[in-house]
Structures are given as C-alpha cells and as structure tokens.
C-alpha cells in the first residue's frame, strides 16, 4: 500500500508538490490555527488561545509552505501535512460540535 502510494506520488512529483505547497499549506495552516484555541493556555486575560493563532496563521503557513518545498520525500511530506491537517481538522470539528 505504502509502496503503491509512493510510486503514485513520484509519478507526478510537480503536481503533488504544487498541491502540498499551494492549497495544502493554506488548508493545513488554517486547520492548525483553528485547533490551537483548544490546547493553548488561555492566559491571564483569557484571550491568548485566540489571539496567538490569529496572529500566527501567516507564520504557520510559511513553515508548511517551506517544508513542502524542501522535503525530499514526497510520501513523508504528504503524511506530515495531510496527517497534521486531518488531526487538527478533526479536533476543531469535535470542539465545534461540543464533543470536547
């Protein structure tokens, strides 16, 4: 399974990297920021968990974008970015629906 996925990704390296560094980086950054209010401490004024992700969105995007550009292994790149986005998206969805 892993080998088949690797071969599929390596067959279209440019497209894969475009998707990861383009929409992938934007989606991962936004989902990561959306999940941050859940695990970040609220701080003295009860707002740090909202303000930090709000401010850090562009920085998070930059980190994901550069990672998508420099990572040699496309499989690892897909696993890290999609995995992070999926975990964060799930956490945010659970918080929104009141599960956590």
């Amino acid at each position, binding site marked *: 399974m892993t080998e088949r996925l690797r071969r599929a990704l390596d067959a279209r390296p440019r497209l894969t*990297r475009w998707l990861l*560094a383009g929409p992938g980086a934007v989606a991962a950054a*936004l989902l990561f*920021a*959306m*999940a*941050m*209010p*859940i695990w970040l401490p609220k*701080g*003295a*004024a*009860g*707002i*740090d*968990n*909202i*303000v*930090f*992700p*709000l*401010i850090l*969105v*562009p*920085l998070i*995007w*930059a980190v994901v*974008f*550069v990672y998508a*550009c*420099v990572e*040699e292994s496309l499989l690892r790149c897909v696993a890290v970015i999609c995995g992070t986005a999926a975990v964060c998206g799930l956490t*945010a969805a659970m*918080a*929104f629906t*009141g599960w956590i």
Partner: protein
Amino acid sequence: MKSLSQSQLKRLTAVHGWSGTVLGLLLYAVVATGTVAVFAHEIAEWSVGGAKNHAPLAGDLDGKVRPIAERMTKGYLEEIAIWATAKGDLNVFPHAHARNPESGKIENYGTLFRLDGTTGAELARNEGFVFTKPEWFEASALEDFLVDLHVQLYVPRPWGLILTGILGLSMMAAGVTGFLMHRHLIRDLFVAARPGNRLVTARDRHVLAASWGLLFAFLLGFTGSFFSFAATVSLPLISQVAFGGDQKAMRETLYEPAVTPDPRPAALADLDAVIARSTALTGTPVRFLVVDHYGRADARINLWHMPPQGTLAWVRNVFDGTDGRFLGVKPRVGRQPSAGNALYELIWPLHTGDFAGPLSKAVWVGLGAAMCYVILSGMQLWVRRREEAALWRGFGRAVTITAYGLPFAMTAAAYGFFLSLPAADPFYWTPMGFVLGALACIAVGAFAGDGSGLIQRFRRLLGAACIVLPIVRMAMGGLDWADAVAQGQGAVLSFDLMFLVLGVLLFRWATRQPHGRPAGDPLPEPAE
C-alpha cells in the same frame, strides 16, 4: 545550518523566481503604495493645506458635543464617536448599530456632524451608514485613495483584502526562499556590485539590497497578511471553534469592556475635565474619543492616546461617564494585560513604522523603497536570463512601465485631487487621475521608443510631474509657503520641497545612462 541539496536549491530558486514573476507587479504596487501610505496622515495634512487647529479635541469640546447629544433621539446615543480630521475640523458621530441592507452586515448608522474645530460651528451634517461614504468623514480624498489602494488595491472587500493577503504571503515566501538560497548571507550584506552592465552586476545589486531588506520583507509580509486575513478569514474560522460561532461572545471577550447595563438617566461627566485627566495620566494627546450610552448611568468615556514616550502601542483609557472616575487602561484585546495583547499591539507599529514619530516613519519609507528596488531588480534579473524569448522581453517592458507608471499614476491622482478641489468632486477625480496617469504611462510605454530611451523618457515625465505639483497645489487655492511657515504647517512645506527635490533628481537621473538595460533591448551574454 545544514546545506541544501541541489534538487532542494533548484526548487527554492524556481519558487523564488516564479512567485516573484507571477505576483511581482502586484506586490510592487502594494509595497510602493504602502511606502507612500506610511505618511498617509501627513499627506492628508499637506493635501488639505494644513490643519487649521492642531488640537481640536482639547479646549471646549464639551460645549461642542453636549448640545448635539442633547437633541439626538435616544437610539443614536448608543455611541458618540468624536475625532479630528486632517483639516482640524471635528467629526461628532452619534450612532447606533444596524444591519446595512447593501452589505448584510451590522454597521454604524447615525448622524455625522462636521464642526469647525475652533468655533464649533456646524459645517456639514449627513445621516446614514457613514463609514460607507468616505467623502462624509474624510478630509482628504487623496489620503483615502492611497490607503485604500495599499490595503485592498481598490478591489471591493473582502476580495481586495484576500488579494493583498496573498501578496503578503508571497512576500514572505520570496523572503524565506531567498534566505535559504543564500549560502553566504553575511558576505552578501557587504557585497560590492561588480562593475559594468553585466548580469552578475544586476545580480549583485539585487542580492545586496535583498540581504539588507530580508528581515524587513518578512516582517512586512507577515504583518500585512495578518491584517488582510485576520478579519476576513482567520477570525471567523477561529471564532467558530472558540465561541461556537457566537460573534457577540467573541466581541465581548476580545474587544468590549464588561459593563453592567443600567438604563437609569444620568448626566454625562464634564468631557473637558476627563480629557485633561486622561492626558495628564498618559502624557500624550487624545486622538479619538467614544462616549458609550450617553445620558445613562452606565455611560463610559473611552479615550485613545498616541503611544507615550518609550512605548509602541496606543493607549485606551476608560472613565466612568457619570462621575468621571478613571476606571483603568483597556488593553487592545481582552480586559486585562496579557501576552496575547502585548503581541497584538506590536503588529500595527511594526507594519507602519508609526512608533517614534517622523524618524521611524522615514526609516520605514527608506526600507520600503529598498523593497521596491528588490522586487523590480528581481524581475529584471529574471527577464534578462530569458530575454531571447519575445514574451519575456514584453514582460520586461511591462516591468519598466509599471516601475515608473505607478509613481506617475499616484502623482496624477494628486493632480486629480487638486484640480477638482475648487469645483468638482475630489473623491471621484482622485482615482480617475490615477487611472488617466496609468493609461498615459501605458501609452508611452507601448508606443514610445525602446531601450534606455524609454526609461529616460519616464524619468523626465515623472520629474516634471513632481516639480509642477506644488505649483498646481498653490494655484488651486492651497496654502502658500509664507503662510505655511507663519502657521507652522510643517507637512505642507516638507512635501512641497520633497516633490521639488525629487523632480530635480529625476531630471538629473534622466541624463545618465541607466544601470540595468531594459529587457526590450536584448544583448547576448553568457549565462552566469
């Protein structure tokens, strides 16, 4: 730092080059207009001929505001916002919050009174969703246009903000990839451009300017994309998770101080006494004032002060509206000081350079101009490596036209503003002046000669526009220099002199051979 492999460097070079090429012209537009907008307030003062009253919020403000508030219906007394225009007039805006059928959003609805800042005489009165009509509340159409052009490229919200946000991200991307591509950053900070007109000479100049501007580029891209995305994308998404989509709860937590509702009638404390107390506490003048719940026992007076000595952030003091008690300093976000607020308050001064008066603003203008050079030289470098192809030569010509056309169009916007002042609507003719100026430059670029002759023609055109502008300003009824000196209108004199000096320099520059050959003038050279 671990060195990058050849394939990684190749990818980074492609990202650096293509992101600059695809978005470079728009990025240049945002950075160039932003560089000008750093002095937006001063441009406003210059364009309206200086402020008649430099401190309209001091003195007898209570006597000007209270009679207006007393004759308003209760609904409009939810908030009274008070601020001075660049002309030194006073805007007093009692208003409520209502849904605007055009935008579908809750906006400020009320009556805006424009008063003479000294006498308090009513100059104008307008009712409606005031902040959708800049001509009602702004003194300078030129300032309004330049700021709007920078913030959203004159594209309607939210698309303009999203576009400039993407450009901010592309600026960060160019900065980070440029940094990673540098293998000798310290050496590049002091690289001397190799002589001649070769490709390596252009590259050396680009690398030198980019190395010094690297941190600034990242900072501008980061803070700029924060401003663009925060309200349009990030906050709505984050508030869905943090507040379950409850906008009211979000506003109360982040922005509004806690007040226990008390609708019993009560007279408002003396505004002048509150302003004097607040100014004594903070040490800087009041720039903006909001009275919440005028005439009620739960009234609050909020005063925004410029950053005190040694600090970067504006200060908001809150007073009890009935007895004038000082209730404390309200942080920008949250109800008490926090790390999040400290970080939040840094973003504005870091983006605009508005923290140490004209000096810090001048540094930001210098760095902004350097960033413009980096963007343009990067695109020229990209084109010179590919100038055998007609398409890239055409792109190179577009770069030259935009490089000179944008500042010319901004100057033409100023002409539109001044020429329409006596008899027409400056809020229409200022953007129209920009469009006409841009079209003129495109026509010159499309039909005039090739090569360095085109650049020299643009320099002469821009130089002439700069030199004539102060004369047109005065001819249209603007303050002359003798009166400007007598009245202490520093902005008027400084900007006029700056335009004259800039014009002379451009004319002198036009007589010299340009360093970088325009791409429309191909010359074979080995790949370097």
